[in-house]
């Protein structure tokens, strides 16, 4: 394990530029206009609508920032031509543990989001957009509603926008405390007034989404990036970043780092840069080594503080292919060597068990089972066969879970996410877990099986 400080790598700010430059009024229409808001939208309105997606966004290589990293222009291209109405939904449900970038973007730069939505809507020919905003974001809601109102008053929303003949309305819909509603088809159910349970695909939302109409769902950060792509041109944007991970991304850095927070960095820097650079994470507060970190939100499998892992670049495909982890929602949680990884795995399992929508048996039952077994291990009551038991439950939710790419027996990826912690324990902390199980009481009263 090495935690040598690196050459200072800093932020590259586009999406976070306004909110850093204007800490006192970035969310107001005055503050936003004074720093160039809606110029990109004005420019877009002079361009051929389709070419924005097909040329600029395609050339930019932009990939979704919500989790799956799907190429944005490709997603838009799946919309059947000439079918109306069609809808655009901005996904601001942000519930992935340790992700806090979308909340920041909504609270502190709502006009950039409105502008991004407007550009996307214009490009795909949509006249009614929605923002699905997490229910708990009361301040974000207030600011976003004000932003939409002010954008209307200045003629950036509504009828015949800026004399272009293009019409657009944005409605903001609030979630109510269900993580699964971040999953795009559960989100659509919730937006239709139903319980937030994922739909079986196909049909994909681009064909039959909201009210069974063609629908594009994009993450808040993805949409907030669009004004910059229009301004600088797709090709120029693609010069930033590395390989097929172009541009910048906001990483939500938390846990055992001196300077937790959101950092917008060029893709391709290493985890070591992100965690240790004095301008970014600054290393662990205790000076102790990093034991492990979760690289892409709670759904991702973990990496350790080894040189091999710390020196890996923030490249979506590289980390997926090399280590079977994902950059996901861009959340990086860092743990020093005082942390018991089983406790973290248990708390994550508890989260997934609580948030499972209950539609598929392997996820509903398996997540709860994993939680109970991890609870007893992390609370000193582990049994010798427990790691194998966990693995066997995990394997029935997500067959082949140790060897990416794995499969799933469930409707949505939440099921396999519930197994990420187990798989990570299996890969990196096997001896430690086995030792903990050995130390547990040999004879457990029968009731301990069910109490927790």
């Amino acid at each position, binding site marked *: 394990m090495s935690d040598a400080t690196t050459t200072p790598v800093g932020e590259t700010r586009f999406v976070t530029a306004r909110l850093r430059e204007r800490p006192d009024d970035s969310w107001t229409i005055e503050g936003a206009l004074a720093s160039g808001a809606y110029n990109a939208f004005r420019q877009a309105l002079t361009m051929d609508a389709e070419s924005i997606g097909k040329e600029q966004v395609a050339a930019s290589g932009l990939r979704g920032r919500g989790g799956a990293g799907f190429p944005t222009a490709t997603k838009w291209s799946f919309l059947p031509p000439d079918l109306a109405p069609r809808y655009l939904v901005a996904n601001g449900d942000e519930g992935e*543990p340790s992700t*806090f970038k979308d909340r920041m973007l909504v609270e502190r730069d709502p006009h950039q989001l409105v502008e991004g939505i407007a550009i996307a809507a214009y490009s795909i020919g949509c006249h009614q957009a929605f923002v699905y905003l997490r229910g*708990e974001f009361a301040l974000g*809601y207030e600011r976003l509603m004000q932003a939409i109102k002010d954008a209307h008053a200045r003629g950036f929303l509504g009828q015949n926008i800026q004399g272009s003949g293009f019409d657009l309305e944005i409605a903001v819909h*609030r979630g*109510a*405390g269900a993580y699964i509603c971040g999953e795009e088809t559960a989100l659509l159910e919730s937006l239709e*007034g139903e319980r937030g349970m994922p739909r079986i695909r196909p049909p994909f939302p681009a064909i039959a989404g909201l009210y069974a109409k063609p629908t594009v769902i994009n993450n808040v950060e993805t949409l907030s990036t669009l004004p910059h792509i229009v301004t600088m041109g797709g090709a120029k944007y693609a010069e930033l970043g590395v390989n097929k991970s172009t541009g910048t991304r906001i990483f939500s850095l938390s846990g055992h780092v001196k300077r*937790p927070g959101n950092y917008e960095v060029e893709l391709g820097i290493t985890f070591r840069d992100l965690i240790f650079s004095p301008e970014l994470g600054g290393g662990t507060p205790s000076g102790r080594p990093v034991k492990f970190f979760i690289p892409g939100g709670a759904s991702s499998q973990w990496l350790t503080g080894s040189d091999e892992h710390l020196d890996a670049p923030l490249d979506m495909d590289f980390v997926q292919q090399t280590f079977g982890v994902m950059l996901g929602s861009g959340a990086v949680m860092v743990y020093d060597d005082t942390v018991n990884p089983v406790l973290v795995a248990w708390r994550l399992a508890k989260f997934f068990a609580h948030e499972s929508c209950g539609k598929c048996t392997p996820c509903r039952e398996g997540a709860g089972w994993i939680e109970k077994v991890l609870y007893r291990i992390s609370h000193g009551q582990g049994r010798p066969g427990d790691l194998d038991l966990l693995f066997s439950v995990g394997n029935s939710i997500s067959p082949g879970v140790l060897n990416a790419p794995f499969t799933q027996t469930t409707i949505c990826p939440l099921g396999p996410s519930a197994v990420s912690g187990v798989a990570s324990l299996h890969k990196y902390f096997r001896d430690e877990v086995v030792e903990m199980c050995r130390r547990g009481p040999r004879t457990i009263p029968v009731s301990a099986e069910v109490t927790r």
Partner: protein
Amino acid sequence: MTFNPTNLARALEIVAQYPRPKSAILPLAHLAQDQDGWLTPEAMREIAELVDVTPAEVLGTCSFYTMFKRTPCGTYVVSVCTNVTCLVLGGPEILEHLEDRYADDPDVHVEEVECLAACGNAPSMQVNYEFHEHLNPDLAAAIVDDYKSGELTARGVSGGRQ
């Protein structure tokens, strides 16, 4: 009648912004809960009328979502995060402290919640959905007390201070 006249007008506006009225169930439930402090059966019946579905459908939807309180709860909903960043930075200790302190206080409803998207300033909590970050047990209690004394107020989930 459960929505007061102002909120009823607001409710009609909300229904009108959706292509299909049923979509308005969640926002109307937030509005009713902000008004009454919890989601009453009467409110669910009125929502059903406003969006033209049965009351059972409204209950069916609302019972999926943890933010909707279908039994009366305290005036102050204190939501403490114990997810994996708060876990190692003191969240569980705050939860325990507040649970003990307000165990017999009917005005304060302390609950454990999942990640609040405030991990950069963990540990964190919300009081009536206002964020409070960089906490420790004593500071958290002082903040709850400030709400009780009226020093701090919340804007409400459905928009616009009530």
